[in-house]
């Protein structure tokens, strides 16, 4: 089992450790619900060093990324910017999702943990005809600092001027990368730091008043924030339009070819299913694979859980088009009325539904 550099720190904090895609990771440090609420109201820190970091080098990084990704890295031509994109196969199916960073010196990709070797092989294969080298970075850790007090927290430990950063800005601070990104729907940052420095950084954040947050709360936070989880909400069986990712498919540059483009152009978007948010206000919990019906078709629950912020169950579902805002979900032997909405459910501490 893989362990992050902070593994012993998590154990010292009383974390419950689970197998997370082959990594021993903290699922919570006591109560997932309390940790969730801390991030919405104050600030929490997450060890997400199980995620995969790839650094690019060579003279054709931009050309390669314009071909590799359906979102267009032209949008981050200015250094110090980051861009979200899915990764598609030739059939337009979603292989993974990632963030690509323009660090000025080079581009960096951060993608999921379970797809690490698959992505590495894919990047190497697709870059064959470009002057690009791909390096998997095993000597770096990632700490997410998320919540309305994240700027104050970092200010306390001597990292200033972050209030000038916009979402998806990125900068280098000493030898670390600080990006204004996250997976919670709150203001926050993700810091990529050398393994040798991560322990003192983590401890200084705790000492400055941050709470450690497990990956359990990370999952409920991102669902409330309307953010997909790869493997549950999207995979190669569905195209990006069926996974609420149409906005990431950049077709503005007509001359640009990218992997999956031809397949996407053949799709009749009107006939595609759609990914929507589901709300169950009655007592019951929406879970993956439950079936849902609405007046014009049906579908299946993807991510589903209890929302600690809202106090009832929420989910994503992939549905036939044509709903009228209402549906029915079967949970065990009971049928429940649900609302069908557009995600997100919450952003920056506020309910959006």
């Amino acid at each position: 089992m893989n362990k992050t550099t902070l593994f012993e720190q998590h154990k010292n904090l009383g974390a419950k450790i689970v197998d997370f895609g082959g990594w021993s990771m903290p699922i919570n440090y006591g109560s997932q619900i309390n940790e969730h609420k801390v991030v919405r109201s104050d600030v929490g820190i997450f060890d997400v060093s199980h995620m995969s970091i790839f650094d690019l080098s060579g003279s054709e990084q931009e050309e390669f990324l314009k071909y590799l990704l359906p979102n267009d890295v032209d949008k981050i031509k200015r250094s110090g910017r980051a861009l979200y994109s899915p990764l598609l196969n030739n059939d337009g199916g979603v292989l993974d999702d990632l963030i690509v960073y323009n660090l000025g010196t080079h581009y960096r990709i951060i993608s999921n943990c379970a797809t690490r070797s698959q992505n590495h092989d894919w990047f190497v294969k697709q870059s064959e005809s470009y002057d690009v080298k791909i390096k998997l970075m095993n000597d770096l850790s990632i700490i997410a600092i998320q919540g309305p007090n994240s700027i104050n927290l970092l200010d306390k430990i001597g990292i200033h001027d972050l209030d000038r950063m916009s979402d998806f800005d990125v900068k280098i601070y000493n030898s670390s990368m600080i990006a204004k990104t996250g997976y919670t729907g709150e203001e926050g940052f993700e810091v990529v730091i050398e393994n040798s420095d991560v322990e003192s950084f983590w401890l200084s954040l705790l000492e400055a008043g941050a709470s450690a947050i497990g990956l359990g709360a990370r999952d409920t936070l991102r669902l409330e924030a309307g953010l997909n989880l790869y493997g549950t909400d999207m995979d190669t069986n569905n195209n990006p339009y069926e996974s609420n990712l149409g906005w990431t498919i950049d077709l503005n540059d007509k001359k640009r070819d990218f992997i999956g483009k031809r397949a996407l152009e053949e799709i009749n978007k009107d006939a595609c299913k759609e990914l929507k948010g589901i709300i169950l206000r009655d007592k019951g919990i929406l879970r993956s694979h439950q079936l849902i019906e609405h007046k014009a078709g049906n579908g299946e629950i993807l991510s589903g859980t209890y929302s600690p912020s809202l106090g009832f169950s929420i989910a994503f579902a992939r549905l036939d088009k044509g709903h009228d805002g209402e549906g029915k979900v079967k949970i065990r032997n009971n049928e429940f009325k649900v609302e069908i909405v557009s995600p997100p459910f919450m952003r920056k501490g506020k309910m959006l539904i």
Partner: protein
Amino acid sequence: MNEIPGDLKFKTSHEWVRVEQDGTVTVGISDHAQDLLGDIVFVELPDIGTQMNAEDEVAIVESVKAASDVYSPISGEIIEVNELLIDNPETINESPYSDGWFYKIQPDDLDEINELLSPEEYGEVCEE
């Protein structure tokens, strides 16, 4: 290690029973079980009057993480359920052996309880 009270008997699937003075039996889930589940957010309890056989699925407990079945440790008729859990399912996390009980059953055969695990034996199951 989670605490295990001495007056209880256990099923390997983490339910506990306590024989009350009036001969009825109270059923709940263990401290170890609530700890494994994490924050509990929903419970589905049986209807009063239902006849259960040992091993039947009798209740559902849902944590933020997942839904789990609760199995009846013994046979008998459901005579009372813990209504407190409907609006306060977190009571199971806070007090699994006391306020967080699930239901009371009028046992068909008290001998079935002798087949359940002692606290020591159950402790060994949790260690595995």
